[in-house]
């Protein structure tokens, strides 16, 4: 059969046409296969339409399927000719063989030609009531196909009512497909702006679903579980009942069934009042979650992302299971990164030693990105668990001692965070850090070290010399370093007024720019900064609830609401309240909406390949999921109005004193994107500043301007207001 893919010959279509009309059956069939092969590689074989069509009427099922495949592909381009096929289709829906009937109805629904659709209704009506369940289940989905093409036909013919009746079908597979079709139509109708609910799940429907759940195929179970998740219970007894009926699904071999079952439990557990049942449900959830890690890496990754969400809601689920999240040497990076995050979430005083020795091990691996994240994780552990901070610092110092460039740089960044959390505690390590000054070439690491020097200027003998190095190269440094040098020099001046002339002069000049009152300056620059802590959640509570109800969908994997990437990602600000109206927490809703807008704009700026004009000139970065992940907390930062990233402390002070009213969860420390805040905030003269150069190639940067500018405005006002 490989011969079908031979390179094109002159007049191949002509030859095929001849073969399609051959008197020999085998020759005709071979020709059809070659046509399909050409179709796959996108050669134009639409000209052969009439010839292929002639071969439709056959007893050979394989050949029939091939012809149908061809028809599905080209029906749209040849609407006139498709009509010729209608007769055969309609005849096939009366065939004694149920497989043929189902095939015909399945294919008719896929022909995207206006003309044929009108002929579809009668056979469909018949097939929906076919005595054979295989035909019925195929017909059920065909209604959804029809709705996709011409919704009014579905309504006129009363197919929706027929589907509603079919939920009571005796065959579980038919029930499952009916549920899938109804859900599909429900979503399509909602997207089209229809106000009537197409698929209302009543308690009568609920019972039928619960019965079918245990009997239908794995995929059907997913469809039914989705529907169960949408059901609104009337009292806690009903919720308990659903939970009890769904829990056995945790033992299913298919990961999507398990995760969907977890979703249903998470949704209905909200209204379960019995403490013991809740406890029992949570306890039963742990083993299947761990088992999901023995799936292929892609499935594992989805599970890990969802576990991450679950832990934000219920941090105790997997408290004894940290070891299963230890990375294997050959895990793909995306799995390792998620495992790291979850390990830090699960870290506690009792398992921190195991975690640290594990993280130390990872820090010596080959992949630079993974090593950096591991070092970050050590810092996060130190910030999370007070009593383990010292051990973390020791591990970090050991790693810095390896003098591997990127390890040292990341180590310095992390140390700065630790200093922020535990001021004046680990000063003994400062000399070691300063000794590595020459190794640093990344802006973030440099800026971190400068921050440390500035902060402990009075305890470092040669602080002025060290800062002098940076002052001398001031104009060549990147923004964060300049910014940090500026602040550090001011701090040095305030803390050690008798320091070297040169630095002080420089500091004084900068200082004159800002203020003439050193007292006020002291209050601002040396003010007590809010301590940093590890955020327990990365998404707002309302969004968390919503995402938990969508496990294991893409939204739950991305930790972003569905609107950000579905429907062309073009939801405007006005469309947001609709989704958020039921959410109780107003503040969170506003924040979520804001986040949505930012992310929506982000999506919009991305490659829009439906539109050929925008296809060129796009950078090939794409929205790789790993990029998305880093962008989520950053988006929160942009919108939160405050940033507790120590790097931009000048700004953050202004932010805190000025627009400190917007309380927001502190973002993850060390997010590179937060620098944008800093630049946005500190534009001196009030003239517009271009967005800062991206530090990491990420799509986000291109997108951030709108919210950033807003904030920039705010910060400027504050700057002016202060002085």
């Amino acid at each position: 059969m490989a011969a079908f893919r031979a390179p094109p010959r002159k007049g191949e279509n002509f030859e095929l046409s001849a073969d399609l009309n051959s008197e020999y059956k085998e020759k005709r069939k071979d020709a059809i296969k070659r046509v399909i092969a050409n179709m796959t590689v996108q050669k134009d074989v639409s000209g052969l339409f009439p010839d292929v069509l002639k071969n439709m009427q056959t007893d050979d099922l394989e050949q029939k399927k091939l012809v149908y495949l061809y028809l599905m592909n080209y029906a749209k381009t040849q609407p006139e000719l498709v009509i010729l096929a209608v007769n055969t289709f309609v005849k096939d829906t009366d065939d004694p063989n149920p497989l043929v009937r189902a095939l015909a109805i399945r294919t008719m629904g896929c022909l995207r030609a206006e003309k044929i659709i009108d002929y579809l209704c009668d056979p469909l009506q018949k097939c929906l009531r076919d005595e054979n369940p295989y035909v019925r289940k195929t017909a059920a989905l065909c209604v959804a196909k029809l709705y996709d093409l011409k919704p009014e036909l579905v309504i006129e013919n009363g197919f929706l009512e027929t589907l509603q009746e079919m939920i009571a079908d005796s065959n579980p597979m038919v029930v499952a497909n009916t549920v899938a079709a109804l859900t599909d139509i429900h979503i399509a109708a909602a997207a089209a702006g229809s106000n009537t609910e197409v698929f209302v799940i009543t308690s009568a429907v609920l019972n039928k679903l619960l019965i079918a759940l245990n009997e239908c195929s794995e995929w059907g179970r997913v469809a039914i579980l989705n529907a169960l998740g949408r059901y609104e219970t009337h009292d806690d007894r009903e919720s308990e009942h659903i939970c009890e009926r769904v829990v056995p699904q945790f033992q299913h071999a298919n990961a999507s069934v398990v995760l969907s079952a977890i979703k249903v439990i998470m949704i209905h557990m909200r209204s379960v009042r019995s403490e013991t049942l809740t406890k029992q449900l949570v306890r039963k959830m742990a083993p299947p979650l761990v088992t999901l890690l023995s799936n292929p890496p892609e499935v594992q990754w989805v599970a890990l992302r969802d576990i991450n969400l679950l832990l934000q809601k219920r941090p105790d689920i997997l408290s004894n299971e940290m070891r299963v999240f230890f990375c294997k040497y050959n895990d793909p990076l995306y799995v390792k990164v998620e495992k790291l995050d979850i390990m830090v979430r699960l870290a506690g005083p009792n398992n921190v030693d195991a975690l640290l020795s594990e993280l130390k091990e990872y820090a010596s691996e080959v992949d630079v990105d993974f090593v950096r994240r591991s070092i970050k994780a050590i810092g996060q552990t130190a910030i999370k668990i007070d009593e383990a901070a010292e051990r973390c610092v020791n591990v970090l110092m050991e790693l810095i001692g390896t003098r591997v460039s990127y390890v040292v740089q990341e180590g310095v960044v992390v140390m700065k965070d630790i200093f922020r959390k535990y001021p004046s505690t680990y000063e003994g390590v400062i000399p070691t850090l300063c000794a590595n000054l020459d190794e640093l070439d990344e802006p973030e690491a440099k800026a971190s070290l400068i921050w440390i020097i500035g902060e402990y200027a009075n305890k470092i003998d040669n602080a002025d010399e060290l800062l002098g190095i940076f002052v001398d190269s001031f104009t060549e440094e990147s923004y964060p370093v300049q910014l940090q040098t500026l602040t550090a020099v001011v701090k040095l001046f305030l803390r050690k007024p008798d320091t070297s002339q040169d630095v002080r002069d420089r500091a004084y000049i900068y200082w004159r720019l800002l203020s003439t009152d050193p007292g006020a300056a002291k209050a601002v620059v040396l003010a007590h900064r809010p301590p940093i802590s590890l955020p327990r959640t990365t998404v707002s509570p309302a969004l968390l609830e919503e995402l938990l109800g969508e496990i294991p969908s893409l939204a739950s994997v991305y930790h972003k609401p569905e609107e950000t990437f579905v429907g062309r990602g073009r939801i405007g600000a006005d469309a947001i309240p609709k989704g958020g109206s039921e959410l109780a927490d107003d503040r969170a809703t506003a924040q979520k909406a804001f986040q949505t807008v930012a992310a929506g704009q982000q999506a919009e700026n991305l490659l829009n390949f439906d539109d050929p004009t925008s296809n060129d000139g796009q950078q090939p970065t794409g929205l790789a999921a790993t990029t998305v992940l880093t962008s989520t907390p950053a988006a929160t930062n942009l919108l939160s109005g405050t940033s507790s990233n120590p790097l931009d402390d000048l700004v953050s002070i202004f932010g805190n004193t000025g627009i400190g009213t917007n309380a927001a969860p502190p973002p993850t420390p060390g997010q590179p994107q937060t620098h944008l805040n800093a630049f946005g905030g500190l534009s001196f003269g009030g003239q517009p500043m271009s967005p800062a150069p991206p530090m990491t190639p990420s799509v986000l940067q291109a997108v951030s301007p709108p919210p950033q500018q807003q904030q920039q405005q705010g910060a400027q006002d504050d700057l002016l207001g202060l002085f």
Partner: protein
Amino acid sequence: MISAFFIFNQKGEVLISRLYRTDLKRSIADVFRIQVISNSDVRSPIITLGSTSFFHVRINNLYIVAVTKCNANAALVFEYCYRFIAIAKSYFGKVDEESVKNNFVLIYELIDEINDFGYPQNSEIDTLKSYITTESVMSTSIPAEESSKITTQATGAISWRRGDVKYKKNEAFVDVVETVNLSMSAKGTILRADVDGHILMRAYLSGTPECKFGLNDKLVIDKNERGIGDAVELDDCRFHQCVRLDEFDSTRTISFIPPDGEFELMKYRSTSNVKLPLRVIPTVNEIGTSQVSYVVTVKTNFSNKLSATNVVIRIPTPLNTTSVDTKVASGKAKYVPAENVVVWKVPRIQGGQEISLSATAHLTSTTHRQVWARPPIDVDFQVLMFTASGLIVRFLKVFEKSNYNSIKWVRYLTKASGSYQIR
């Protein structure tokens, strides 16, 4: 749901393309080629561009790709991709570029059967094989009765089994296959040891047999017969869809009507009291910057009636290794420069034995001083009639209307491949 399904080869050529829904154009395949296949930076299995999400799984240089435009169930999409691979494997053996090209007609037939309008349909291999075959089927050659039987089976409550199976000899084979995951620190402390168990069954049983399956699982035993010492604690188990989950949930009995032929009855996980069949004690010393010396000892940790077979030990060497001298008493050891490992193959190690390897790796001097990451030593092996978890099949009862006698066979195998690591 799934809007399109593609198979690409390494070069990004489309081998199979099937659009299930109308919301995508065929040209979407080019986007995937440009954004993922030609982009070496992609490190995520899901890529979302605008509102289009690409899910991909790689196998033998092929990309199996599913595309969606909605907030799809990500776990389901990946499970579906893997199910496709499993089905393809069972139909034509290997899933690679050649086999896909050679079987493209069959593949189109299959992906139309297991997916309709983006919703996965019945994908039980046994059932599919009853009506999608490698030979062409004439619709007239199947009597109407037969075809309606097929369809009832494909949709029935026991979609995985035909009703009319007949065997002269009724036999059932049970294979308990355990994969040991181990990571051990260089000092010999166990960081993580657990067992992924699979119970595979080959059922050649007539009629519609009702089976009951029993293990020495602690939960079951604690309920029924107290005081049995060798009970195994299973952390979790998952079952083939033929097992009645509600019954397992309430009474912990595993009862089912098996599919005909081979299937995976259950998967389980155990973390307590894992018996490690092999103990590896490595001593690695970096002598200056020019040499690394190795002494690796492997001890077996099971009865001397059993033996470990196909033992392959991979010992990583630094990247700048030029040559390695090895000395082994049993098996063969060879330095593989392409992978930077010494591969030590031992065909068989008897229980209670101990073997060792000593080697010296010679290094070239390098300009940049990069610390050697020391990847873990990896051991692959198989031990027949041994379970690391201690799991034993206690019974398999078969009940059928005609009351025939059936013969049952049980085999145990513990193995490791790529997951038994010593740092």
